[in-house]
């Protein structure tokens, strides 16, 4: 019972961007995933990638608010990592057997599908940001992501006043939107 509440607190912390929560989950589960990956033809770098991707899945689920963990956090992470790693191996054509000890894991197919969609969105936005170039990238980053106010931004980027910065930001935003939606509609 105590463990359950504990894990619930951790997930809530994760959703609040609490670094301690992320660190605790990381510490408790990383080694398990690393041995899973290494024992199945992977390297430590592979293990880190896989585990961090699983953490992102967990993070997204935690943030969505509707997430109910109906098994141990460890089991969930293990299942996600296992699926991710199998997928990676299949892409490398090195793994055919799919049927061993499935009973130890929980089904995470739906979660991973959702994650795949979010992942695509993320990459699309990252690509769009990459395409607008500086100083637009920095400008939008500062305003929308770091949530600085216009005066601060004008000072950092060397605009004469906040209104100028605002106009510049507007132009950059339009470009970003155009690039992003052109890809979004293609999808």
């Amino acid at each position, binding site marked *: 019972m105590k463990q359950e509440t504990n894990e619930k607190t951790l997930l809530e912390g994760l959703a609040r*961007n609490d*670094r301690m929560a*992320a*660190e605790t989950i*990381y*510490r408790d589960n*990383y*080694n398990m995933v*690393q041995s899973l990956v*290494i*024992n199945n*033809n992977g*390297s*430590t770098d592979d*293990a*880190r990638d896989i585990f*961090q991707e699983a*953490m*992102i899945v967990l*993070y*997204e689920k935690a*943030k969505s608010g509707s997430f109910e963990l109906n098994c141990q956090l460890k089991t969930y992470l293990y299942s996600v990592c296992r699926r991710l790693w199998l997928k990676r191996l299949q892409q490398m054509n090195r793994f055919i057997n799919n049927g061993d000890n499935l009973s130890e894991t929980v089904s995470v197919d739906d979660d991973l599908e959702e994650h795949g969609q*979010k992942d695509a*969105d*993320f990459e699309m*936005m*990252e690509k769009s*940001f990459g395409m607008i170039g500086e100083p637009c990238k920095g400008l*939008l980053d500062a305003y*929308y*992501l770091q949530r600085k106010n216009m005066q601060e931004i004008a000072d950092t980027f060397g605009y004469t006043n906040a209104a100028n910065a*605002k*106009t510049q930001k*507007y132009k950059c*935003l339009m470009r970003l*939107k155009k690039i*992003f*939606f052109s890809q979004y509609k293609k999808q």
Partner: protein
Amino acid sequence: MDDQIVIETVENYIRGEMNAEEQLLFENLRKSNPEVDQLVVEHTLFLQQINNYGERRNFNTTLHQVHSDLTGKGEINTDLPKGKAKVIYLWNRYKRVAAIAASIAGVTTLGVSLLVNTLIPNTATDKLQELGREINRVKTDQIEQKKEVNNIKNKIDDNTKIPFRTAGTGFIIDGKGYLVTNAHIVRNARNIFVINSMNEQFRATLVYTDLNKDIAVLKITDEDFKPMTSLPYGIRKSSTDVAEPIYTMGFPRNEIVYSEGYLSAKTGFNGDTLSCQLGIAANPGNSGGPVFNHNGEVIGILSTKETEAEGVAFAIQSKYIYNVVEELKKDTANQKIKLPTKSSVAGLNKQQQFKKIEDFIFMVKVN
């Protein structure tokens, strides 16, 4: 309204940074103006995407930091296992590669040694020659021994030669080694041998016999027998006209003998409908031989001759061969028998027909 101001207003609205009055005003505008509504929806989605992007990016950074922190503190072990464990780890990781490499190496080695063996000239010729002579001596010894054994065998053979009781003639009806002859020739046979015109002898077994029709079918079972391909003659299904010239081949002695005649009557001795009467010079030993018409078609099997008159012989009509073969086919082992229906020697003169046919006529010896 300026586009820039519109966006700003929309952003304010989405972030909830408007006061109640402004909000009401904007919502009314949104209801009345679908373009504004569309913009709000679109921009909401976009800001959400940007937010997700930002959060995800921050979280990624956090994860990287956590990873290096924890590694620094030694709370997670990302180093590769040391010492012996490392060897095991590397082995596990690369064993497949190693196996493939090893097999390639093996194949290459074999290939190279093979090449070397075939390409490099024999250097130690002296030794090899000596060895060669050794082998030759062994070989000659063996040949001599074989000769000796053969001599002994021949002597034994000569001494214990089984006398053949009866002999007749038979002819091939299927290239796989099926022969037709008279049932009376092979009656009570213990061993049956067939000998062709080249004096080659093969062992045969009786696969079918019909004493009423006086037809028997033999199969050559000898390993030395090579299946024959196309038969030069066909076997006639319908009866032949009286007075048609006919000829036969057979082994009244140890050599194939040709004799000619004509069909004298459509029935046999005392009106026997199974056979027909021939005017031909036949001898004991001709029994079982084929009777051909001038087209090289088998019209009968020579079977008996009248003792009281010279030059009168009887042959079983060829259509009964078909009956017999139908019976034979009921046994699965003989299902594939196929009788030749078409003669390929039609139109050739008798000498040529004889040459083509003689290989398919066998002497049947029985004891």
